[in-house]
């Protein structure tokens, strides 16, 4: 088992190195135009050059994403519990929620920018819309699928409605909420980046867009790598947290 893990790891590291070396060689030999495909060393140099500016853009984007994330998880869980647990609401609203969930959000982007202008607000609103629906749909389903016996037993032991929500429903949907939180972060980041590209004045999306328009390929690649690495780090961090929590839950 451990030998296989070592083999897997060495294969991973080796292939990344091979790809980077091949890329460097191809760029150095002039087989590709360095204007479009800069060598990895040029990208690294560009990264060092950009330094503080790129980090400021990243910070701006992540701050917007964090606000959108908190909003979409709170709204998603709250609305999901409300719609999922009240029969009348569920019957009437769930088809609308499913349709809105399936509708590509990109189509309302111009309208949101028209309403809210350029800057931070449309990014947060659009990021929230992106993250909200996956959480909402998951939580709605989770609440609907809570074991009826648990509810009946709690009721027959005289639990109040408050206790029913707090002691039975909420603990039962924790895994669903965690799954939703894992999904929502990427969606929020996606939404924020799209708005920044479409109508941004700051943030990584705007930085990426203007670097592409300025044909600054090394800087563009460096910025792309920075955003990618940070979003992978965030997702892996959430996964680790999730695992911790599930061990703690038993």
């Amino acid at each position, binding site marked *: 088992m451990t030998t296989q893990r070592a083999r897997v790891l060495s294969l*991973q590291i080796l292939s990344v190195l091979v790809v980077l070396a091949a890329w460097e060689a191809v760029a150095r030999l002039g087989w590709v135009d360095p204007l479009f495909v800069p060598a990895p060393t040029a990208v690294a140099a560009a990264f060092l050059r950009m330094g503080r500016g790129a980090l400021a853009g990243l910070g701006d984007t992540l701050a917007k994403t964090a606000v959108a994330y908190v909003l979409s998880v709170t709204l998603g869980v709250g609305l999901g519990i409300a719609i999922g647990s009240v029969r009348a609401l569920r019957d009437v609203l769930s*088809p609308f929620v499913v349709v809105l969930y399936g509708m590509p959000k990109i*189509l309302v982007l*111009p309208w949101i*920018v028209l309403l809210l202008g350029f800057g931070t607000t449309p990014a947060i609103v659009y990021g929230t819309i992106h993250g909200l629906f996956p959480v909402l749909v998951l939580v709605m389903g989770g609440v609907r699928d809570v074991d009826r016996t648990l509810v009946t037993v709690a009721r027959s032991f005289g639990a109040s409605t408050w206790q029913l929500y707090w002691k039975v429903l909420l603990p039962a949907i924790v895994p669903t909420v965690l799954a939703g939180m894992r999904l929502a972060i*990427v969606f929020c980041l996606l939404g924020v980046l799209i708005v920044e590209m479409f109508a941004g004045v700051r943030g990584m999306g705007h930085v990426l867009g203007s670097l592409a328009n300025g044909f600054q390929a090394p800087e563009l690649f460096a910025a*792309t790598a920075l*955003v990618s690495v940070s979003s992978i780090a965030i997702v892996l961090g959430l996964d680790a947290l999730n695992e911790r929590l599930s061990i703690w839950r038993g």
Partner: protein
Amino acid sequence: MLRVLLLVAGLAIWEVFARLANPLLYVPPSAVLPALGRLLRLESYPDLLASLLLTLREILVAYALAVVAGLAGGFALGIHRVIGRAYGPILAALYAVPAVVWYPSLMLFFGLGEASKIAFGFLLGFFPITLAVLAGIRQVNPQMIMVARAFGARPPVVFVKVMIPAMLFTLVGGLRTGLALTVIGVIVGEILGSRSGMGALINHAYGLFRTSDYVALVLVTLVLIVGSDALAGLVERRAQQWTE
């Protein structure tokens, strides 16, 4: 019944609100129908059909590429356990990156024309298909392969008769997700920057503040998106019946 009522009430409230607040910004529903009529009679945008066809062609090319590359990539990774375990997580990690960060690089590389939209649609569609093939291969019961081999079936026969049917359901699901994402990718690409196609028309209407035309264009694009997904859903149900 209640749902219809709610829908009508919602539209009515919107209508009243939009008229009171700012009809240009909030586009009352009553303004959308005439705009849709003008659009479909090719009065407001005479090049509607050409744009629709261009977007459709971008989607088809991107999806065809994504299917071929996704199937090839998935089987190549699934053929050996160590290879799959080495590259699977890398692929999954890349999948966790919001795909739109790649788009500026693609624009730089492929330009403003249709190539960058095809590349972006391909990229979005490729991942779910590859991951579905990988998941599907893991679902195949190794004993079935062993039995087939023991009865003298050669690898191609095992592949077609044992593996494909066993993983069909997962595979078709991945193909459907891939199509949906390819469609979104092409349209996102067009809206973020293009000269032609539905996204360019939407941007044009938005830029000139022709909001009711914008809503009409969005509705037409929505038909395209929903239609392609409905078609994929039909195929998926066929495959489901066939496996059962």
